[in-house]
């Protein structure tokens, strides 16, 4: 008995090598070959997707421009108590002068200025102006010379900003992205009328949910038709469903502009039919309605296809069985057919919701001001205001939001309930 137990413990090959080692050796070549096959794609993804995104996300907390450009100032200001209400000492002014003299040679002082300008407007011009004078400063009595160059150097607030953002990492972007600011009393939400990002996040969520819901409502009957029609007609219908995929997104969105505007086709038709008066034409574009209509249309295939592939697998005999047992059409649908399509609804909803929550181009074109999403704001910070740190912070928040919702979905519905076909 104990004899067999021991041989069971470590099975060996005929040569005495442990069997597991032998198996691993035999499979190593296979594993290496498999790894080599995916290696090009893996490297491509790593370099073109993972690395840039990681770098971008890191920018949401990165602040090394301040300590890098103003190294002496950062050290000197450490000892100054920013809540004392007094200006820092002569040593800090001296350090700043030395730093700026170095920085003006490589013109990096303007970049620090722009960086700090996000936190305290006016800093950019202050640094620019001082940069022009600092090389003419004489040794000693720097405080006076600074104040002569620009009176703002006598304002404690500018020094507070420099001190607050002197460390290489900062949470400032995240505070700004969540409409908060750091005041003397600690972190607080901004005044109601200055809040923008929370509102945008909320609107993005609400509109995405609305779009997902209307995709379900519109897509379900079509998917059912696709799954139950004979092959010839369902193929034709499938081409119609896929047709939008083969047209440019811009063309489709622009088409909606033509249709939805006040003098557009829909309004003209309604007026012509007398349903709407000429003076009270509907505002269908450059608002949330426009965004919902256009995005529902664009994302509809992503709902129909998973629904269709799930419905295709549901045998029509289930409905017949239900009816043979006395169920009416509606009862049979609701109790027998519908529950079996829930995995398809789940898959379609996740696709549509996640796509729409990060959508940019359509809200930009038809959303006006009330119909834009958080992604439009991110794009604005990337390309217009050049506040990449804030854009990155907003991006991180969006990513976390999506992941949280995904996690919630998994907890409530179960991700293995999702079926794409």
């Amino acid at each position, binding site marked *: 008995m104990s004899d067999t137990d021991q041989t069971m413990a470590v099975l060996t090959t005929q040569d005495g090598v442990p069997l597991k080692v032998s198996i691993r050796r035999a499979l190593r070549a296979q594993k290496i070959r498999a790894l080599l096959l995916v290696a090009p794609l893996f490297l491509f993804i790593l370099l073109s997707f993972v690395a840039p995104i990681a770098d971008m996300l890191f920018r949401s907390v990165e602040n090394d421009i301040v300590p890098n450009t103003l190294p002496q100032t950062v050290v000197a200001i450490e000892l100054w108590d920013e809540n004392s209400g007094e200006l820092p000492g002569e040593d800090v002014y001296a350090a700043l002068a030395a730093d700026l003299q170095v920085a003006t040679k490589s013109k990096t002082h303007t970049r620090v200025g722009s960086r700090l300008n996000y936190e305290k407007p006016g800093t950019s011009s202050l640094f620019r102006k001082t940069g022009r004078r600092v090389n003419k400063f004489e040794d000693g009595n720097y405080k006076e010379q600074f104040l002569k160059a620009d009176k703002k150097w006598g304002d404690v607030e500018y020094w507070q900003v420099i001190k607050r953002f002197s460390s290489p990492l900062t949470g400032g972007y995240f505070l700004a992205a969540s409409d908060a600011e750091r005041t003397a009393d600690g972190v607080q939400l901004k005044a109601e009328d200055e809040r923008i990002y929370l509102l945008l996040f909320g609107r993005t969520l609400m509109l995405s949910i609305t779009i997902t819901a209307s995709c379900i409502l519109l897509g379900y009957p079509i998917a059912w038709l696709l799954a139950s029609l004979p092959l010839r007609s369902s193929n034709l219908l499938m081409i119609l469903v896929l047709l939008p995929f083969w047209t440019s997104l811009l063309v489709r969105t622009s088409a909606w502009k033509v249709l939805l505007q006040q003098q557009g086709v829909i309004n003209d038709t309604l007026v012509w039919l007398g349903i709407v008066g000429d003076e009270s034409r509907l505002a269908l574009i450059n608002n949330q309605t426009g965004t919902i209509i256009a995005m529902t249309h664009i994302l509809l295939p992503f709902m129909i296809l998973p629904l269709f592939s799930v419905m295709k697998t549901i*045998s029509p005999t289930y409905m017949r069985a239900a009816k*043979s*047992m*006395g*169920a009416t059409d509606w009862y049979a649908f609701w109790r027998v057919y519908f529950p079996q399509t829930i995995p398809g609804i789940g898959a379609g909803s996740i696709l549509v919701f996640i796509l729409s929550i990060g959508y940019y181009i359509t809200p930009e074109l038809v959303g006006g001001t009330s119909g834009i999403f958080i992604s439009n704001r991110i794009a604005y910070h990337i390309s217009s205001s050049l506040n990449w740190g804030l854009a990155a912070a907003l991006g991180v928040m969006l990513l976390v939001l999506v992941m949280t919702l995904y996690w919630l979905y998994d907890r409530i519905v179960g991700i293995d309930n999702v079926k794409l076909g």
Partner: protein
Amino acid sequence: MTTERGASVKFDKVQKSYDGEVLVVKDLNLDIEKGEFLTMLGPSGSGKTTCLMMLAGFEPASHGEIYLNEKPINNVPPHKRGVGMVFQNYALFPHMTVAENLAFPLQVRNMGKAEQEAKVKRALEMVELPQFGSRRPAQLSGGQQQRVAVARALVFDPDLILMDEPLGALDKQLREQMQYEIKHIHENLGVTVVYVTHDQTEALTMSDRVAVFNDGVIQQLSPPDELYETPQNSFVAQFIGENNKLNGTVTAINGNICDVKLADGTMMKADKVNVAAVGDATTLSLRPERVEIIVADGMENSITGHIEELIYLGDHIRVRMSVAGNPEFVVKVRNRAGEQKLAEGQDIKIGWFASDCKALDPVG
């Protein structure tokens, strides 16, 4: 829940076409009695399943009327017909447990919770699966799913049960066992069962009467033994059981017996079933087990055959021989001690009674 249940069904001049060009069911007239087990048997495409679907209400009849308990039901939707149905692939709802599946027809009828539970329990006991109520259909074997499907069709006490090839997906052994179980359930409950199959063994073992379908027409409607022993035409003779064919011409008719001249000139006496007049072509039908290799006294027919092949099957030996130009003539020889030794290539004399040999309509 025994006796005096069951519904009568009547097909009256029913025709069915899907495309307006081909009749799938041609002029069907059929009376099914209360409590009867009737099987619709036929090859695929013979119209048997269509008939069942018309009876269930899933397909409208193109012409004619179907009566359930003497009431016409052409315009009654399926859910109001109160007919239990067992489908080919069971059609158990995959998202419900076995108990929920069984409770479905009861919920539809707004039955009380307690009554539902009692009925579900009784139905599960009837099919010997009392422990399986909380399982999902996917967790059951094929045979268990089959039983659940039967229980579900019975649980709301319908008077008529339709079964559409319910045993088609089971292996041979399980199929035989289920045949007996379904038959016993039918005997115990006394409901009317209309059963569709293409498997003749199934039809013969279970049914009170079998309707053999071909080409949209009932070829013969008889109890199983009659179907096997006195087929009315060549199709039925071919379709049910094994059959030897000998082609010939009728030369004389004497009452129930006719003389037939085979292609090679041999004269045979046969039971006149489906021939009209002297000079008609005919196909003689003969069961392999009714042919003897020792020609007994009183056998009207005997002929010499050439043994082509011997297949040993234990209880009997299957002898394939050439007889009167037919190389597929099969004789079943019982495996008995002292039986004469057969060898391939040998010529032997075989014989049979005229009453076992049916003169039917000619085929190929």
